[in-house]
């Protein structure tokens, strides 16, 4: 059978970020896929040589616009571990709340893009309209819609008043109630089911074999979530990861839809359980230069992110590495693309929630 090679990317209407897949087709079936990335490689890790560690947090949060807060938080937390700094509890709670809101906004963004990928533009608009409420909360509390610049080594730069937190919980609960209709559409609409059910099935064994992380793994039934380790105050919250067993694209959509509701609930729990000490310190003064190294893990919306920082006692770090979840999920994507129909390729690429700017830094 004759084979055709169709290059997809780097600019393609469906791709949120530049990625090239050279698809080898036999008729309409994809037989092989060769990936190429590198279009947004900015060499940010080399900037440790010229940006001091106090300011490197601003570089780190600009690795990606969607996962921006978690990158900043991961850097701050890892540096605090190296410098043995104990942040005030209120700062940790505020970081948790912003992190969960970051998860909500990222999942809403992805649901919109995923809907656009399978042609449902109306739903895309709805998801993004819902997301505006979250971005407004970010702007009110941190000053920026996408890049917050609110993390620093030793704590956070802005506080949220208890009244403000209560208002945020109300807004998010209204958002959740309003979003329930859209969620129902994602889960039950026959046209979506027709496009996504049974497509790109990643069985549990396959997910183990390719070391998938995040919603990719959770949709295949693997109970994998960095929040279960209980760090960063997650041990104070009641939390059970959302699992699905089907392992197809629809299951991954359903996992992300349910995680939105779960994050809203986590924020409500956090606001209830955090100490009502307004005026409590939100940062500590950090002195001295960092020495040592550490690995730090967080649960970003796309999965587990690992930060490795090595400091050698000068004001420039020796090494900074962010292994983002998309980096770990790309082998899963390549595994899924082989053997599918050409029309399913956009859905499968979108289903890993690709954040190529995070992958390439």
């Amino acid at each position, binding site marked *: 059978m004759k084979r055709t090679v169709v290059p997809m990317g780097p600019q393609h209407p469906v791709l949120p970020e530049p990625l090239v897949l050279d698809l080898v087709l036999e008729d309409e079936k994809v037989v092989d896929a060769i990936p190429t990335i590198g279009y947004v490689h900015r060499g940010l890790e080399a900037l440790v040589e010229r*940006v001091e560690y*106090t*300011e490197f947090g*601003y*570089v780190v949060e*600009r690795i990606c616009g969607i996962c921006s807060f978690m990158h900043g938080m991961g850097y701050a937390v890892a540096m605090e571990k190296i410098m043995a700094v104990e942040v005030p509890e209120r700062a940790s709670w505020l970081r948790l709340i912003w992190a969960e809101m970051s998860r909500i906004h990222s999942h809403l963004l992805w649901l919109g893009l995923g809907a656009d990928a399978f042609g449902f533009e*109306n*739903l895309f*608009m*709805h998801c993004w*309209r819902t997301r505006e409420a979250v971005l*407004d909360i970010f*702007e*009110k*509390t*941190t*000053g*920026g819609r996408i*890049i917050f*610049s609110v993390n620093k080594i030793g704590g956070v*730069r*802005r506080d949220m008043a208890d009244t403000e937190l209560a208002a945020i919980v109300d807004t998010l609960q209204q958002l959740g109630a309003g979003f329930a*209709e*859209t969620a*129902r*559409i994602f889960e*039950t*609409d*026959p*046209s979506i089911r027709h496009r996504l059910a049974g497509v790109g099935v990643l069985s549990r064994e396959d997910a183990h074999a390719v070391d998938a992380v995040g919603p990719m793994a959770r949709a295949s039934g693997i109970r994998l979530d960095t929040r279960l380790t209980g760090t960063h105050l997650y041990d104070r919250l009641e939390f059970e990861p959302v699992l699905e067993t089907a392992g197809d694209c629809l299951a991954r959509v359903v996992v992300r839809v349910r995680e939105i509701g779960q994050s809203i609930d986590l924020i409500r729990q956090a606001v209830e359980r955090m100490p009502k000490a307004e005026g409590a310190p939100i940062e500590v003064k950090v002195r001295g230069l960092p020495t040592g190294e550490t690995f730090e893990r967080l649960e970003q919306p796309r999965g587990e992110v690992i930060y490795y920082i090595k400091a050698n006692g000068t004001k420039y770090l020796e090494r900074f590495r962010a292994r983002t979840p998309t980096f770990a999920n790309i082998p899963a994507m390549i595994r899924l693309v082989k053997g599918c129909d050409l029309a399913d390729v956009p859905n499968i690429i979108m289903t890993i929630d690709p954040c190529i700017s995070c992958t390439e830094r």
Partner: protein
Amino acid sequence: MANPFSLPMVGRSLRNLVSRPATRRYPGEARPHFAGTRGTIEFDVDTCVFCGLCVRRCPTVALACSREDRSFAIEQLRCIACGVCVDLCNKDSLHMSMETPRVQIHAGAAPGDPRPGHQEWHQAQPAAGGPPGPGDPAGGVAAAAT
């Protein structure tokens, strides 16, 4: 063929047809900004003591100051609106405003120029008949130099 009235989106779509748009007709209608939104840096040269603390701590080296000349510059193109300078200043000379930044490229900038931004110099009244500051003051904010 699915029954079109059981499709969950139909109700939503019909409601959308009769409700008002979710988007604003920008720039005709602008959304009011929130109190804490980070925007442009505005500088008040009269209160500045030219200590240089903000210059040292700016992550993108967007600020420059000269104590002898009593002048201070902001390169808006480099500014990332992080607000560190605003937080640090002991004299409250810097503050965030929601004005659209007056970002300008300086006349000699070529492609690949690492610093194409125009530096907006602010000149304080010289203490006792001192020399005027370097650079060309940009529109609106510079105090007069004698």
